[in-house]
């Protein structure tokens, strides 16, 4: 993988602070990054702070980055269960001339304009079409409850609490992911596999 390109991408994101998106390296591993984006204004997601898991394959940027919301989101194109995203540029419409920044900005745009015609989460999409006010309420409630900077940093604290035991950061992330954020379960899992 072209580490130079990723360094350049990170630098560019760092430089442009106003964009509302940022990316953070997880230790030395450039295959796993964490993205952050602010909820777009005048939407149910306004004020929210969303965390996105990013995985890069060796062929990146010639294959799309794998992205998933770690923060729970109520949105027709995002799975309310596991954060999976239905977005064309993360699939067959990816182009190597796109970047992590443009991809995160596209996620932001997706939050602003849901595409219920191409749903990832049928229940949410159904609600979006049939009962717009209820959808707005739920989305706002989820944003207030889950998409907070505290939770994002707590998430980070969880990782820290595991890495402080001597586990590498990426292992901590994988374990937390598989236990849906349960620190104790994650530690048990890591100890078992030792």
């Amino acid at each position, binding site marked *: 993988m072209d580490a130079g390109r990723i360094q350049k991408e990170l630098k560019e994101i760092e430089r442009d602070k106003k964009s509302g998106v940022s990316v953070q390296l997880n230790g030395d591993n450039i295959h796993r990054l964490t993205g952050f984006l602010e909820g777009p204004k005048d939407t149910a997601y306004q004020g929210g702070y969303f965390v996105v898991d990013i995985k890069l394959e060796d062929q990146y940027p*010639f*294959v799309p980055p794998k992205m998933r919301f770690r923060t729970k989101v109520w949105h027709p194109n995002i799975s309310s269960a596991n954060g999976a995203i239905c977005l064309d540029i993360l699939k067959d419409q990816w*182009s190597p*001339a796109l970047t992590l920044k443009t991809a995160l900005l596209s996620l932001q745009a997706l939050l602003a304009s849901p595409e219920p*015609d*191409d749903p990832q989460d049928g229940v949410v999409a*159904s609600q979006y079409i049939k009962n717009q006010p209820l959808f707005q309420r739920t989305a706002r409630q989820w944003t207030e409850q889950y998409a907070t900077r505290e939770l994002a940093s707590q998430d980070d604290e969880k990782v820290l609490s595991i890495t402080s035991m001597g586990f590498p950061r990426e292992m901590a992330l994988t374990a937390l992911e598989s236990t849906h954020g349960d620190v104790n379960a994650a530690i048990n899992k890591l100890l078992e596999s030792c």
Partner: protein
Amino acid sequence: MEDDSDYEDSYVASDVEDYPTSEDGDYGYDPQTEPEISMRRAAYTVLSEEELKLRQQEALQQVMQVLSISEGEAVRVLRHCKWDVNRVNEEWFADTEALRDKIGLVDEQPTGSGRRKESCGICFDEFWVSEMHAAPCNHSFCRGCWKGYVHTAISGGPAVLSLRCPLPDCSAAVPAALVTAVSDPKHREKYHLYSLRSFVEDNQRLEWCPAPGCENAVEALHEVSNEAMDVTCRCGSSFCFNCKEEAHRPVDCETVKKWIIKNSAESENLNWILANTKPCPKCKRPIEKNQGCMHMSCSQCKHEFCWLCLASWQEHGERTGGFYNCNKYESAKKRGDYDAESLKREHARVSLQRYMHYYQRWAENDRARSQALSSKAEANDKKLEVLSEFVATPTSQLKFILDAWAQVVECRRILKWTYAYGYYRFGDNIPDEDTAQKQQQGFFEFNQGQAEMFLEKLNGVVEKDLDNLVEEFKREPGLSEVAPDGSVFVDQASSPERQAVWSKFREQLIGLTEVTRMHFVKLVQELEKGLDQLLAFYSEQPEAEAEAEVEPAAVSTAEASGSATPAQQATAKAPKRSKRSRISSRAAADKASNSAAAFSLQEADSELEAEAGYWQCRRCTVINRDLNSQSCSMCAQNRRGPISAS
């Protein structure tokens, strides 16, 4: 030069060898009304990899010249039009701009000066413009990034042939020259392979030979229909051009497909595929849905469709009841379309027993065919030479034994498929009142039985009888011994007794081979005609036969010149009998043409028989020495007539 090779490699495949194979529709057959006849004549060519490349190049050159476009553009256009040069011309001249847009051909953009630096849009490093590459849209990227882009696309499969510029929203096609210029030899080779494969796979008239390790393709020399068409590749394997399964005349492809799926030992695998994949509605490649929403887009042909109802995604919208809950699917489910499917499966389980009956016979014949194939090879390798010494005959004159084996192999194949046919043609329980169906089943089973009986007999003679004969010869060795006085050689091999035994065997085997062949030809013809038509035909037979046999030449002339056949005239005279007459006229026309064909066949037969000094009964195979007699001295079978039941 092409013409020569064409000529050499062309086969006019015809299982019914005695049928005239001229293409100009002798005997007045109209392929529209008699598809089963056109099916018999399948003209095709076998092309090697080199020849394929030449063909591809020819097509490219032609398009490049006519449309004055570059080779890269010609490839795109041809691929879009399934390598059909005529279609290219049509589409191109109908709306050039639309076509160019559709396949991403853009006019060459002016390039700036090469003596300046520009940032590559992928790796963001700076490069001299002169060192960067671009598609005709002139969006430049550095060589390394192009390489990564192209290699990833090549690893992604044949879709690389429609590669577009890496810039989002730019639809310019990446020319093949650029792909090959930036890729390494391994990927380049793969790209060329995809290109050649596209030439064969997108082209309706070309099919790869499915034999393992064979790299030839077969080209059909006429419009391809969706009917079974047996072809034989230069490598020796026979397959159906339409469905790529082994050759299976007279059974149609649908039956074969169903049968093979049914027999699949990997039924578990199959269950998985059935349960977890659906074929792309456009390109038919199986697709597994392992994540995400119901909006599918095929990774190869890019077709977008709904996973539930398989209709194009464009037809989906709020109008049709929403996307997350496909209404088409729901209403079809309510209508019971999907229940019918499960009922059908249930039914198949119930009929397992009947299936076993047919399957065992199918498998038995399949096995017997493989055995016959190896026996034939064995005979060719060893037996003939041994025999040659025993009967003082050169091996070249013993070819009739190999012919007999070849006939056994071919017949086993046909017989095998008639069991698949029988399984699907007749239901589990034919109700007693359905006499037509009963009659057809009886008729089919009778013909199958007849063919099988002769095949078993032929197999027995060429295998057991021949072995016994050889054993017998061994007991009295052919090579002579030195007589006590030291001078006389007794050549047992050329003794009159042995020659008599041998020539009798020879006659019997040749005759039997021919009779068996005839029976199977008949069986194939009959099944291709369809049983219902056939019964109608036989019920009209005596009349039609008389008509046709009075003046077969006149009938064929009349038909060839396009005037009405006697039967058609009869229809014209008696319009009230319309339905029945139509059947009758059709049957008569059939019969007339059959007779006309049979007439030339008879002439050929007579000559051969005169040469041999005898004729052999078609039914009981006895040798009749009286060349003027028209019925068999043993069983009274008509010498030229259809074989009657004994």
